[in-house]
């Protein structure tokens, strides 16, 4: 059996792919992440609230999701705690902006060059800067704010701030129409015809047409199993196998395993690998265009890329709705009682790349154990040839001349999250 080792870079770090070929077709791929930053160990024996400052630093691109997961895990340590709706709405907003900035960066810095061999840096930075500004208005700065704390948020959320944020949303909507697809957002959300999308102007039809022209639209099909743990006003939790939806899932069925050569954990649900992320969310939400893509091309790179870009208008319209419903007479923060001296808590959030789960254990007022389960550990686990992870399965069977890097990166790898 032939072997090849390839270094994949610009994935918030690096990973090694060790391909095993059979007659020029990939038989199995080992995925190895080389370094770890030991965050879970660093958190041990610290006062629990310190996690709010440390955890955003797990990741430079999705640190905000780590903050929200942390605060949810800590709030889950109480038997009951009241968080004002205004604070919950604000958290939802800042999280949405992080997702949007991730999606733009991924589309223009990762996918676009791989499909077209061209670069478009400012198309990544202009929207991501706009999203950063919106987060900074509410949360002080981006990246690495810790503005969300047990009991609410540190900022006093005023009508003035929300007006500014609403304007950033309008700016992002305009950018989306100008760069991605020249169509009204509402109209685009109800669109369920691939060809109709492809006929429009914009980088999304351009990229998707490119993929079709290269006959790549069926590449990267995986297990067709999807899982979403985080619920929000936009996302549904549950799992979906092919198109069969099950609402009930429980984090207690998550198991982890590590392989000797990689610093990354792999996550399974009832011993099976699932795909998490925008495609999974779209499958559970039954987003019309994604349902159609899935019907025609399965869980391929076509559906995966399309699902992620299609999430942007959903997020923007959802954000807009939140800005209109915020109740300014509520406080932004209500001081909670002291954290219990002994407790455990789980925090779940839908990050850009999928479900992110934090588990904290507190003993004698200190963190005794902290577990971080990231989306990349679901999608890019290191399974065996008989039980491959979603990314391994997507690569399996590809000819050596096929765009393996694109297939791999269609999951959007976050190396630093994987090996926190």
């Amino acid at each position, binding site marked *: 059996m032939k072997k090849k080792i390839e*270094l994949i*870079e*610009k994935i*918030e*770090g*690096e990973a090694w792919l060790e391909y095993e070929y059979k007659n020029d077709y990939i038989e199995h791929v080992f995925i190895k992440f*080389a*370094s770890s*930053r*030991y*965050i879970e*160990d*660093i958190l041990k024996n*610290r006062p629990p*609230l*310190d996690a*709010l*400052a*440390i955890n955003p*630093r*797990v*990741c*430079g*691109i999705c*640190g905000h999701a780590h903050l929200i997961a942390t605060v949810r895990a800590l709030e889950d340590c109480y038997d009951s705690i009241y968080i004002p709706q205004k*604070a919950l709405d604000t958290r939802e907003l800042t999280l949405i902006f992080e997702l949007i900035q991730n999606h733009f*960066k991924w589309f223009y*810095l990762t996918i676009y*060059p791989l499909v077209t061999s061209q670069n478009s*840096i*400012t198309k990544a*930075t202009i929207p*991501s*800067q706009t999203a*950063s*500004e919106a987060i*900074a*208005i*509410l*949360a*002080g*700065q*981006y*990246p*690495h*704010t810790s*503005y969300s*704390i047990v009991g*609410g*948020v*540190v*900022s*006093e959320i*005023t009508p003035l701030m929300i007006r500014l944020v609403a304007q950033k949303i309008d700016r992002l909507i305009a950018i989306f129409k100008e760069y991605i697809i020249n169509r009204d957002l509402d109209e685009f959300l109800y669109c369920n015809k691939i060809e109709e999308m492809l006929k429009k102007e914009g980088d999304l039809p351009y990229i998707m047409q490119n993929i079709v022209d290269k006959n790549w639209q069926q590449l990267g099909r995986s297990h067709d199993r999807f899982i979403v743990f985080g619920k929000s006003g936009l996302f549904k939790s549950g799992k979906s196998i092919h198109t069969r939806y099950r609402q009930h899932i429980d984090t207690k069925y998550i198991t982890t395993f590590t392989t000797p050569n990689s610093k990354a954990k792999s996550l399974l649900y009832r011993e099976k690998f699932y795909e998490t992320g925008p495609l999974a969310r779209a499958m559970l939400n039954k987003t019309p265009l994604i349902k159609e893509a899935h019907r025609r091309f399965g869980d391929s790179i076509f559906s995966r890329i399309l699902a992620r870009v299609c999430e942007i208008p959903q997020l923007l319209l959802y954000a807009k709705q939140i800005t209109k419903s915020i109740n300014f007479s509520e*406080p*932004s*923060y*209500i*001081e909670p009682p002291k954290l219990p001296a002994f407790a455990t808590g789980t925090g779940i959030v839908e990050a850009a790349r999928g479900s992110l789960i934090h588990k904290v254990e507190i003993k004698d007022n200190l963190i005794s154990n902290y577990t971080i389960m990231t989306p990349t550990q679901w999608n890019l686990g290191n399974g065996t040839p008989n039980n491959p992870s979603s990314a391994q399965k997507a690569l399996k069977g590809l000819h050596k001349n096929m765009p393996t890097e694109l297939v791999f990166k269609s999951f959007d790898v976050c190396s*630093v999250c994987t090996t926190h």
Partner: protein
Amino acid sequence: MIFHKIYTMHSKLDILWLSALACNGNAHSFLNYKDIDLFLQEFDFVYHPLLPSKYKLTDIANFKVECDILIIEGSIEKHHKIADTYLDEVISYYANMAKVIITLGTCASFGGIFAQYSQNISGLHYRQKEKLNHYNSFYNKTITLSGCPVHPETLVGTLYMIRDDTKLPIDEYNRPLYYYGYLVHNGCSRNEYFEYKIDKHNFGEVEGCSFYEHGCQGTYTHAPCNINLWSGVNSKTRAGQPCMGCSEPNFPATNLWETKKHMGIPAKLPYKIPKRAYLSLAGVAKTFTIERFSKRIFESDEKKDRVD
């Protein structure tokens, strides 16, 4: 610190951006630089962890690349490898070649969060405040830009000053005083509450200062957070989050949300303010009850709010 003009055969300076043990926070913070397109017309990345660059990481690790400026992001761990080459060899090779080295972020500068895991993890020249010897021969051409992350203007401004041969006054850690001569306190919108020693601070309010109860380190943390606002609009302390001291060598301290006090007196006082001076002024300030500070800023004196 004065750098001699960097002469190159090409018009733009070549920057090699190396990631060690990093979260990429500084790379993403840099992407927030408003005029990044103009910047990229004047500087070239031979390698950047996010942006398209001339070379691949394997080229870097095989010593095939030339650079004028070496940027290191992330903590340095002994025996860490990038693209199968020891990071130590990669750093030594390019540090030797570069005219200027920038340790970008608190991890690369002082070790940061990840250095708390093991003695084998540090910054390039420091482990917290302890000066290390391993890369000492490069110390005089290193500029320290600490922060978690560093504000994009701090990086870009420094790079232009290097290019233009601008005199760069520095502090004891080689940090440029144009940025680190400031304290996070300078320019904070909550300053009055500090000046008049109003202890009371509630999260979720525009009023109050978190120095007294909630651990704000802004008065002794060197960074221009409230001079060059984040994304041009805000800062953590303005929003209401205590400064966590992320640009200082000892970041992160423990118990970050609480002010450590000795018999009610803050254990850490504002930077280089003598205890006697601070306490005398505090005593006097506390004597007065100033009614304005007990009122909410956004509340009309009487019920005059327009509801229509």
